[in-house]
């Protein structure tokens, strides 16, 4: 029995080594995962799997093996191809229809509007000026986002039609405008089995003014138990709407009072090290779970390291790096498990436009979410990476 894994990162490949199932690792051109192949067990293929013809031709190789039991992707780029392989090979994994309902934010909004209207917000195609004007007429501002976007890339506030028109036409064609949602934004990690959805972790986000995520605290310090319960219910309903019955998902929701609105969802685990927060606070190896579920390999729950945990990302103003704090600060009540700036003195730092522009990360665990949140704020205020104008 083999499991096809599309585009795993080095971290995910290492995690996958704990699976008993043999792996068929599929890397896109330019990737380098040969060193991660387990001798005499795993296989590796280099495939431009976003190309439909290449994927179809590769599917024939997989089909002829006769031992593929499941297909999984751990990255956004591989979700659709994985869905196609699942359908083509008739094996376990997330069906293409479900993948598309989560990947295409326009489709997700349509489905929610039809089946769970209380969980969505008004939206319009970004190429439909009248609809956007109507949307803007109902609120002070709205959010433009690419229909298939990830990592906050391309997300921006739109207050007027003029703002919209400043967005390149091509991007507008492929984008949507949503009514602005205010409140506390959280990420919800779920594992579904035969239509039953279990919440593995909820993390509150720290976001910059231009929507780049710079921190996550699990569990969310700002939500009450009742709000958390509403979040769980909302996410379960969403997953039912898009037809996700099995596997992991990562859903972002906005909570304001009793109101819960869906921001977006993906049939993969959350990025930004949220998997490590799940592991720290629940003992569940979330990466391994996200890989092994199609073949029924779910790891046993281990020991919780803490009741709360946080990820914080280093950011800095545009310029040249003048100093980098090499070690985590000593803070009472929290333990830093990771302190990893990704830049050095002299490196050039560009404008912070998306997650890719962040400058490394730290992870900490603590006794409760409020302590972790305070530590996160402290790290952000330290400016661990300082720049000077070039």
């Amino acid at each position, binding site marked *: 029995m083999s499991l096809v894994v599309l585009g795993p990162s080095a971290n995910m490949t290492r995690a996958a080594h704990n699976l008993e199932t043999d792996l068929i690792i599929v890397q896109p051109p*330019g*990737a380098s995962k040969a060193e991660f192949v387990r001798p005499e067990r795993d296989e*590796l*293929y*280099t495939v431009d799997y976003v190309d439909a013809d290449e994927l179809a031709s590769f599917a024939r190789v997989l089909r002829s093996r006769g031992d593929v039991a499941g297909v999984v992707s751990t990255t956004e780029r591989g979700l659709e191809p994985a869905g196609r392989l699942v359908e083509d090979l008739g094996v376990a994994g997330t069906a293409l229809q479900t993948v598309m309902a989560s990947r295409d934010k326009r489709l997700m909004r349509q489905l929610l509007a039809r089946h769970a209207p209380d969980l969505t917000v008004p939206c319009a195609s970004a190429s439909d000026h009248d609809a956007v004007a109507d949307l803007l007429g109902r609120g002070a501002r709205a959010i433009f986002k690419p229909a298939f976007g990830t990592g906050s890339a391309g997300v921006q506030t739109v207050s007027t039609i003029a703002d919209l028109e400043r967005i390149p036409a091509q991007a507008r064609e492929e984008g949507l405008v949503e009514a602005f949602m205010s409140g506390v934004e959280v990420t919800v990690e779920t594992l579904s089995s035969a239509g039953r959805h279990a919440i593995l972790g909820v993390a509150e986000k720290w976001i910059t003014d231009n929507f780049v995520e710079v921190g996550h605290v699990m569990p969310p310090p700002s939500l009450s138990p009742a709000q958390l319960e509403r979040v769980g219910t909302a996410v379960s309903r969403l997953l039912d709407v898009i037809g996700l019955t099995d596997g992991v998902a990562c859903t972002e929701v906005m909570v304001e009072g009793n109101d819960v609105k869906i921001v977006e969802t993906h049939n993969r685990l959350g990025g930004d090290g949220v998997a490590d927060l799940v592991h720290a606070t629940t003992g569940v190896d979330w990466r391994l779970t996200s890989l092994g579920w199609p073949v029924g390999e779910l790891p046993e729950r281990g020991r919780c390291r803490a009741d709360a945990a946080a990820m914080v990302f280093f950011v800095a103003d545009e310029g040249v790096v003048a100093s980098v704090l090499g070690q985590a600060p000593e803070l009472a009540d929290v333990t830093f498990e990771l302190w990893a700036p990704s830049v050095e003195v002299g490196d050039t730092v560009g404008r912070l436009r998306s997650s890719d522009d962040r400058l490394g990360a730290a992870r900490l665990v603590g006794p409760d979410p409020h302590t972790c949140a305070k530590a996160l704020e402290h790290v952000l205020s330290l400016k661990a990476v300082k720049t000077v104008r070039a």
Partner: protein
Amino acid sequence: MRPLIINRHSLRWTLGEHGRYVPTQPDHRALLTRTFGGGLEGYRSADFPDVTICDMTRKGHLERVAKWLIESRQLTHVVALHEKDMILAATLRERYALPGMTVDETLPFRDKVHMKDGLVAAGYKNVPAYLPVTTAPAHPLPWSGRTVVKSRWGLGASEVRVVDDPADIAAAIEELHADPATLEVEQFVDGAMYHCDSVVYDGEVLFVSVGEYLQPPGKFASERYQGSVIVGTGPARDLLVEHNAKVLRALGLEAAVTHAEFFLTPAGEVVFCEVAARPGGGGLSEIIRFTYGVDIVESAVHLQLGLTPNLARAPGRDGGSDVYGVLGIFQHVLVEDLRDFLTRQVAGIMSYDFMRPEVPGRVRHATDYGHKLILRASSRAEFDERLTQILTLLDDRCSERS
């Protein structure tokens, strides 16, 4: 040029450091390899960004993967240096109309019955009596004495049995666990074994090296070591060079690197054993390079790519007075790095490689080495002395360890 490279050997051996034997840009070469046997040794993604690692024990799967690579990348050549892949490579070339050896041209270098049939048909006389098992009468055989039962498709002397009595042939067949249709029987030939390693281009043997095996390859299962020493001069060499040329001409080879094996009987007669259209393994390419400065592996790759082989001999390496040989100590003899132990006490060790066993247990074929040494001496007598010295030290070490 966009080649498919099917590799089962150490990657560095097959393609040189960073794939330098394949003179094309890295993303134009598709590497199909395995993890076993050093298939990723020295691998860097910058050298082979288009890499496929697959289970090569599943023949049908390997072929499907190879076809997929050729079709999806529109590859133009197939390079394969392992005996097991020669027919596959030829089949792929035919199917996709790619240049290089066809199946008909390859078969005489793979099927040991086919190759002897070809030689006999071409009038080459020095072939031992032989028969496919399927047509061999149980008794009597048309020869007397001992009989060799072996795979028509075997390699590394791994599927060979010698019986004294024809009545034992059936038991030998059973022991080989093989379909009788894949076996042959032939007259046992008594004599020292030699090999001729050649580069053939345009139907002409442009380069040949002759070596003498330190032990008959067929005896690997009961021995501690194997190896070979270059025979640079002498009447035996001249005779073998002549027979090698006759064999290659008789089989109609146009362009390839070959590894032919012959017996030299006590009466001084040369008898053909077998021939393959690929470089010999087990360190032979290294001692040839040390002796002549010619890289037969690079030549093999170049010929399969349709390029002219580079046979320029390195200065001072003209097969002169120094004698080079390879000694392979089988992996089960001693699992221990002997580099310091041997190089401290024996002169002339040019290189030593210790290979930790990937498959523990008895030796599987004639080059299943755990230790590989390249030895240099000023004469054959000195080479033999050094060889004896190493084997004595090995005995001592084994006694200590036991």
